[in-house]
């Protein structure tokens, strides 16, 4: 529990994190299927002011897997995913109960440095939100926050990030043009590149394709497919086909009569989609596919 990677004292975070993960892999797997839990959520409840949005969530987000969050509108999927990098605290008066662990460290520990935490847990939003600066500067933004780098090195980071986001070919000749000149799909992939550039361990995506056309959606899905081994991904989606295509684990959220969001069922995607245990899951999935 004295993992220093999130704490305020600056240290060689990257190295520490890496070696930890490696040793984590070698240990006898604590989870079924030999999986390491990247984020472990226990008894999580979240309040906007006095309004309880989600309650009693227990879920494991496995390292190197894509976990999809599905469920009807308003059931708290976005709320849940925003709790994972504590970006929900921007909403003002909020309250969290329960624990969220990031590789064994409680992210709500008062010692945790929020900026370091968010660097480890990147986020892609529903609406593409590039900064109104150049494409290059967008990708470099996160790196520059944590210190200057020589130009050559920075160029390389930017290129790698754009390549991982499958955007390099389309923008390599206009890196210094405003990011706002890109199409919606390109902007969203730029936002993914921007998030990847700081090398997070976990990538949270809140309906990353909902503002995109089918072709752009397909590109983002392929991208997720190619990133799944390197990053741990949690994705919220309303598109059942998308959830079944990209994810290996699925969490189904729903609301009860009191409008509080619950986790109804969590398991391997194939199980959730083909033989869900809970009737409400089956109902929802059949309804959405039908």
């Amino acid at each position, binding site marked *: 529990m004295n993992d220093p990677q999130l704490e305020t004292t600056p240290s060689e975070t990257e190295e520490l994190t890496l070696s930890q993960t490696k040793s984590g892999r070698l240990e006898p797997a604590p989870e079924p299927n030999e999986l390491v839990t990247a984020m472990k959520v226990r008894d999580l409840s979240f309040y906007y002011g006095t309004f309880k949005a989600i309650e009693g969530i227990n879920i494991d987000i496995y390292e190197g897997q894509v976990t999809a969050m599905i469920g009807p509108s308003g059931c708290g999927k976005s709320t849940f995913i925003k709790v994972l990098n504590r970006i929900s605290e921007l909403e003002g008066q909020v309250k969290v109960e329960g624990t969220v662990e990031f590789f064994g460290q409680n992210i709500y520990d008062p010692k945790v440095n929020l900026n370091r935490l968010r660097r480890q847990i990147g986020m892609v*939003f529903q*609406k593409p939100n590039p900064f109104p600066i150049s494409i290059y500067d967008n990708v470099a933004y996160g790196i520059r926050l944590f210190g200057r780098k020589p130009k050559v090195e920075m160029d390389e980071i930017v290129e790698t990030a754009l390549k991982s986001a499958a955007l390099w070919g389309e923008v390599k000749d206009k890196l210094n043009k405003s990011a706002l000149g890109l199409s919606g799909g390109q902007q969203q992939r730029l936002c993914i590149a921007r998030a990847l550039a700081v090398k997070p361990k976990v990538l949270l995506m809140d309906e990353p394709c909902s503002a995109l056309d089918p072709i752009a959606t397909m590109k983002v899905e392929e991208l997720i497919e190619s990133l799944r081994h390197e990053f741990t991904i949690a994705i919220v989606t309303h598109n059942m086909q998308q959830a079944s295509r990209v994810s290996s684990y699925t969490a189904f959220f729903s609301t009860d009569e009191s409008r509080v969001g619950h986790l109804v069922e969590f398991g391997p995607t194939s199980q959730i989609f083909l033989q869900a245990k809970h009737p409400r899951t089956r109902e929802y999935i059949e309804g959405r596919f039908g």
Partner: protein
Amino acid sequence: MAHSATHPEDHLLTVSENPRSNLLDRGFTVLVQGVALLVIAILLGITAVVLAYAQPAIAHFGLAFLWSTAWDVPSLQFGALPYIFGTLVTSSVGLILALPISMAVAILTSENFLPAFVREPLAFLVQLLAAIPSVVIGLWGIYVLIPFLLPIGTWLNNNFGWFPLFSTPPAGPGLLPAGVILAVMIIPTIASVSRDVLTVVPKELRSASMALGATQWETILAVMLPAAAPGVVGASMLGLGRALGETMAVSMVIGNSGQITASLLDLGNTIPSLLASQFAEAESPLHIGSLMYLALILFVLTLMVNVAAVLLVRVFGVKV
């Protein structure tokens, strides 16, 4: 999607539901166009009148008026340079002082550093500053500001007298008090417009920055301010426009001496202040013409500031 039989499909497109609304629509358009034309007509009318009255001076002095430093009423020698100089210097000093303070106020009142019940009244108070009549601010300048600035000016002159800006002992009234007065007068404008601009920067940009691990200040400096920059430039130009044209308060604290001096502690004068003080007693057409010529120059200056604002916003808008 069944339409009722009494409304065939084509009627949906050709016949307006309510013919009256159509008429209103057209009437309103005409009204708005008329008002817009009227505004343009007034602008042109004013320009024409000023030009006509300025004609004797324009004919007599030509463009040399712009760089002549003479202003001698009895011998009918007139030149604009000291007044152009005073106007530009006081306005610049005002803007330079006002901008950082305004930005601080705008940031403080748009971010969550203060609880809302302090923030809102503070923003309101700053706006209220704009409601103080300029004569009152001028009086404040005479009775409070000038005595306050006097020892500061003396200190500056004693210690930094080698620096041209502070090279004379403070005269009491002068360019510096005028600049400070102007700053006070334009802070409300710049601060409240900048605050409005900052509050409408999309929330998503802030989340994006914070999600990458930026602190609140990093987010403000690297995302919020650049995104708001076009608006802030616009606000500054608005403030500068007001500073250039301000008459009363400046007239009360500037010392009304048409000279060109590097020292901010020395006396000066501005175009509006000179106009206000001399129009009443101007008799010869050449004197009136020279004052009108000055008015025209002020008009052009303000116009240039506005054009510069539009251009700056456009440049920033493309780059940022």
